[in-house]
């Protein structure tokens, strides 16, 4: 997208009164549009703060503290010692939201990587090759779209559940269920992206530059990855950004139902599991993790909205 400067040049040449200012690259134009989007800037700032909270907080409170149980302090309300109160077995909720946040955010980001990879491959193959490949891939996409995501997630969580042992990354042990959740969220959410990529490929492959590439003997893989894909990056970036919010929500839903990440590993979602039993007696138990999920999803949605206006001005938010 950045390498299309000639286009930006010709744009400025249409406005003679602006000839004084140096031509802007597409990146600068996008940044200009993004900057005007106050909510997007706000979202980006909140998101940075949330990441600081989850990953910087780890330097203040240790993980063993987050898993430390003190049954004398069961369900104690927020106080100076425990700012967010304690849960059913006396663990500090503030510390758990920090470590839970790390997992929730990491799940959101990695699940989107899987989602994007699958979405791009399926969409690109279907859009580029068309015909039978397209028909088969799109039928599968449609089939997956027809079952509500939460049902698919539950069935898949049962399918993979308990099959992956605990893993250790960077000196910390993660429950194998984290990996299961990442994979199943990735595998149940790629369909919209695949459709977007397919539509982009369908229109882009009719362009002259693709004909030229083909005439010079460029391989199909080269055409797909070097010539078409970079041109359809804008909607992919937007969709992937919004995908992070959806992945975090999906993790929260499935962990809320008790089928997601298993304790003692905390996530914002599984901290809410069973919280409705303490609706009245311990509202702090569900309020803080819920609020953090809401803030994260909200700021990602703002950011995605701004990115859409900046990168992909032709499309409109629904």
């Amino acid at each position, binding site marked *: 997208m950045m390498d299309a400067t000639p286009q930006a040049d010709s744009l400025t040449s249409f406005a003679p009164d602006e000839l004084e200012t140096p031509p802007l690259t597409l990146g600068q134009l996008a940044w200009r549009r993004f900057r005007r989007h106050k*909510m997007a800037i706000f979202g980006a700032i909140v998101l940075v703060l949330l990441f600081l909270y989850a990953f910087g907080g780890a330097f203040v409170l240790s993980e063993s503290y987050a898993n430390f149980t003190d049954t004398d302090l069961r369900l104690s309300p927020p106080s100076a010692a425990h700012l967010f109160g304690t849960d059913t077995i006396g663990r500090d909720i503030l510390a758990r939201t920090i470590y839970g946040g790390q997992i929730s955010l990491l799940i959101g980001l990695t699940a989107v990587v899987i989602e994007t990879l699958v979405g791009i491959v399926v969409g690109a193959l279907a859009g580029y090759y068309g015909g039978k490949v397209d028909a088969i891939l799109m*039928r*599968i996409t*449609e*089939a*997956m*779209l*027809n*079952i*509500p*995501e*939460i*049902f698919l997630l*539950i*069935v*898949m969580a*049962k*399918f*993979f*559940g308990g099959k992956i042992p605990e893993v250790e990354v960077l000196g910390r042990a993660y429950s194998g269920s984290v990996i299961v959740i990442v994979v199943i969220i990735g595998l149940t959410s790629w369909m919209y992206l695949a459709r977007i990529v397919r539509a982009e490929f369908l229109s882009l492959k009719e362009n002259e530059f693709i004909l030229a590439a083909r005439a010079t003997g460029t391989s199909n893989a080269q055409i797909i990855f070097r010539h078409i894909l970079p041109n359809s990056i804008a909607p992919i970036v937007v969709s992937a950004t919004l995908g992070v*919010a959806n992945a975090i*929500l999906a993790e*929260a*839903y499935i962990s*809320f*139902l008790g089928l997601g990440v298993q304790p003692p590993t905390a996530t914002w979602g599984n901290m*809410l599991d069973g*919280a*409705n039993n303490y*609706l*009245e007696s311990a*509202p702090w138990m*569900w*309020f803080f993790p*819920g*609020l953090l*999920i*809401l803030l994260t*999803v*909200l700021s990602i*949605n*703002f950011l995605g909205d701004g990115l859409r206006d900046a990168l992909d001005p032709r499309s*409109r*938010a*629904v």
Partner: protein
Amino acid sequence: MTRYILKRLLQGIPLLFIISIILFVLMMNMGDPIATMGGRSVTRPSDRERLTRQLGLDQPVYLQYLYWLVGNDWTKVDLDGDGVAETPGTRRGALRGDFGTSLVNRGKPVTEIIAERLPNTLILMVAAEVLIILGSLLVGVYSALRQYSKADNILTALLFIGYSMPIFFIALISMYLFAVLFKRWGLPYLPTVGMFDPQVGKTAGQVLWHMVLPVMSISIISFAAYSRYIRSTMLEVMSQDYIRTAKSKGLSRREIIYVHALKNASLPIVTVVGLDLPLLLGGAVITERIFAWPGMGRLFLDHVSRSDLPVVMGILMLIAVAVVVFQIITDIVYAWLDPRIRYEG
């Protein structure tokens, strides 16, 4: 048009086949249904073996799928484990409306179990859908007619928050506010659990009263999304030439908005409503769990946790059929409402 409808219906059939195959294969690994088959002692290895054989769980996946789909009354099955298939099968298969019997509630047909719960979910869905459409039309039009005013900005921000809310958070907050705090403040408070107060019985008033919070929780996300959508289509329509014509020939503002603009602006909503069904059904799972509402969502969760394949499969196929049918209806209604759209047969 008839040809188009027929074509869509014919396209839906292979789609449902693909869905059923994907789901069936996924469910082969759902866990051991026999381990959770009731409190009686089915733990003896010989009993386990016998049950596995009787339920046909020892068969390969493709055969199990075939029996599920077309039944096994055309062939013989081996029930006593002597390697000779001599007992004629009794299942009639999903294609003939027999989705098998539940493994958890021994012998109860799946269709019966689902039929018991379906109305409970349907009333939630219908109420939520009415609320969503009316509410979002009101808010969307109001917001669009006052574009960039203070009210519009506040509404837009609130809608964004509503759109980003996890369903359980909406449910928990509204429960806390309308049930716990209202009770504490001595105000009339809403019930949070079940469909009716067992001491009063299942009366229409009780069910309505218990529906308030679940319906609100299901609706808010879609309501926020639709409102934003209606606002933008309304703004688009209001800048069209035919609105200017209507203005210049001296029609009243009211007539322009409600007759000329709203009618055209609400067209695209038909598509959204039709395509949103999966989302609403998904929301129902969480909501029914939180509010202990005895609907399909809870039925699904209960039977998934006990690996009751026939029931789970039945629920999912019912949903898939509903979604496919709704998509076709959406397309047809859309074409009927908007004469500019013509589907070629």
